[in-house]
């Protein structure tokens, strides 16, 4: 296959063996962990900055505005400047806050998203850990972030924050179900929970095409539920700036606020990459049946680019939602989940199982 030239397996293996040659096994692992950690950290920061910039530009264009345009050409360094500002800004101490929890909450949020990102395959052979229960791991870990949100709301000792945190708790507990079930629909089709194999299984066609109707329904539900899970509009009830000023992070300032902010964007990136991996074939190029020439051209686009293109497409969709719809109310949010998404989802799982059993998928 031509895209083997973009295969990272040999590269990572070469690094592994050469490290093992030079160092004792223990230090080799430590060195590898350091390299991976550093790479992910850099990647994380870059993507975070870029997403903040992209969101501001996207919403600006949708709102007939120019958006950031001062720092650098087209304002691309705006978020860097903002970051520097946030680093320099005073951290306002809250007198009656629970100091320890207050300080630890942003870290929990950011570590949860950090852990999730490590299991995502960016290209062939390019992921930190390839767990055999990758899908499960990612869902489990990304849901941990809500603990940080709850703690932040609770410990700030602010009434707005508390309401925001409670809303967030109710929201994540319910939407976790839909996220899980919609992924299960695809897992039935794929027969595995290992992310690398899920991608591999889509070399003949993305799951959204192969599983046609049920896969598409699952995709839509996943989009809705994951938007809710990342606390983004129209489900941004935990922040709800027109009701709760800033919700759970009302009292945070400076870099602690930046952590929450960054984590929101990274969570969006993570769910978008899961959607891209599971439904849209991850780093697999786009192929159409027997159009050899077309498929060949597609193969020359590196898989990493394919992966990013799909992820950003989904992120764009989520931004589009946010900047179009009004916010839901808390009871409507729960109604949507328990009365609409969950039943549809359950029927959909059965439907998918039936289709897989009968072999009606492609």
């Amino acid at each position, binding site marked *: 296959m031509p895209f083997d030239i973009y295969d990272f397996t040999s590269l990572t293996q070469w690094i592994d063996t050469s490290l093992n040659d030079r160092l004792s096994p223990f230090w080799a692992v430590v060195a590898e962990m350091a390299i991976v950690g550093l790479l992910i950290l850099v990647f994380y920061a870059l993507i975070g900055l870029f997403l903040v910039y992209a969101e501001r530009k*996207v919403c600006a*264009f*949708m*709102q*007939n*505005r*120019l958006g950031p*345009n001062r720092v650098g050409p087209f304002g691309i360094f705006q978020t860097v400047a903002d970051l520097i500002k946030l680093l320099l800004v005073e951290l306002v101490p809250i007198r009656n806050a629970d100091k320890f929890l207050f300080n630890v909450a942003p870290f929990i949020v950011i570590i949860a998203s950090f852990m999730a990102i490590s299991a995502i395959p960016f290209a062939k052979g390019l992921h930190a850990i390839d767990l055999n229960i990758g899908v499960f791991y990612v869902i489990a870990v990304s849901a941990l972030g809500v603990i940080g949100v709850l703690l932040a709301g609770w410990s700030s000792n602010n009434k707005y924050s508390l309401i925001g945190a409670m809303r967030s708790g109710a929201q994540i507990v319910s939407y976790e179900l839909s996220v899980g079930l919609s992924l299960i629909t695809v897992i039935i089709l794929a027969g595995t929970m290992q992310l690398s194999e899920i991608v591999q299984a889509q070399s003949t066609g993305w799951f959204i095409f192969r599983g046609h109707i049920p896969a598409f329904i699952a995709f839509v539900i996943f989009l809705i539920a994951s938007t809710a899970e990342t606390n983004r509009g129209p489900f941004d009830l935990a922040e709800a700036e027109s009701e709760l000023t800033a919700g759970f992070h009302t009292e945070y300032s400076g870099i602690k606020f930046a952590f929450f902010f960054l984590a929101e964007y990274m969570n969006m990136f993570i769910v978008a990459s899961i959607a891209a991996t599971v439904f849209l074939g991850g780093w697999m190029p786009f192929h159409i049946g027997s159009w050899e020439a077309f498929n060949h051209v597609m193969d020359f686009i590196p898989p990493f680019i394919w992966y990013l293109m799909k992820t950003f497409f989904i992120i764009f969709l989520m931004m*589009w*939602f946010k*900047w*179009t*719809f009004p916010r839901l109310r808390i009871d409507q949010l729960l109604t949507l989940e328990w009365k*609409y998404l969950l039943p*549809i989802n359950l029927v959909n799982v059965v439907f998918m199982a039936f289709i897989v059993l009968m072999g009606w998928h492609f």
Partner: protein
Amino acid sequence: MRSIVKYISEVLSGVWSLLKGMKVTGSYFFRPSAIVTQKYPENRKDLVMFERFKGEVIMPHNENNEHRCTGCGICEINCPNGTIEVITKTIITPEGKKKRAIDKHIYRLSMCSFCALCVKTCPSNALAFSQEFEHAVFDRSKLIKISNKPGSQLMKGVE
């Protein structure tokens, strides 16, 4: 059965209404020509205010440094918030007559509410609005302005 049909049609019409909204925002996203905001300090040169725009009250002077203000003080009376203060002096005309003339026409921009009463009521049309809108200064005292230029005189023929 009917309730199921209702349920499904509810879901579909809901989704359809959401898509209609997305069409609006999406179409603007791909139409940068619809952008209405401008880059302000850069476009200063071609930024033209409407000629009636009430920027600040000024006293227009002609090229001989002459204005039309007789110092009658009507603008001061008409101003609702004491923005204007007219200080007059007595001068001797070339014919040897004593005459009232303006010494200082003080205008406090920070107090003006742009009601245009002074401009409208001035009997000799000595006041006008300028289109200046960049009023920010670092020192409040800079907002107290003297409308008549130093050394200016009453225009000939204005009584």
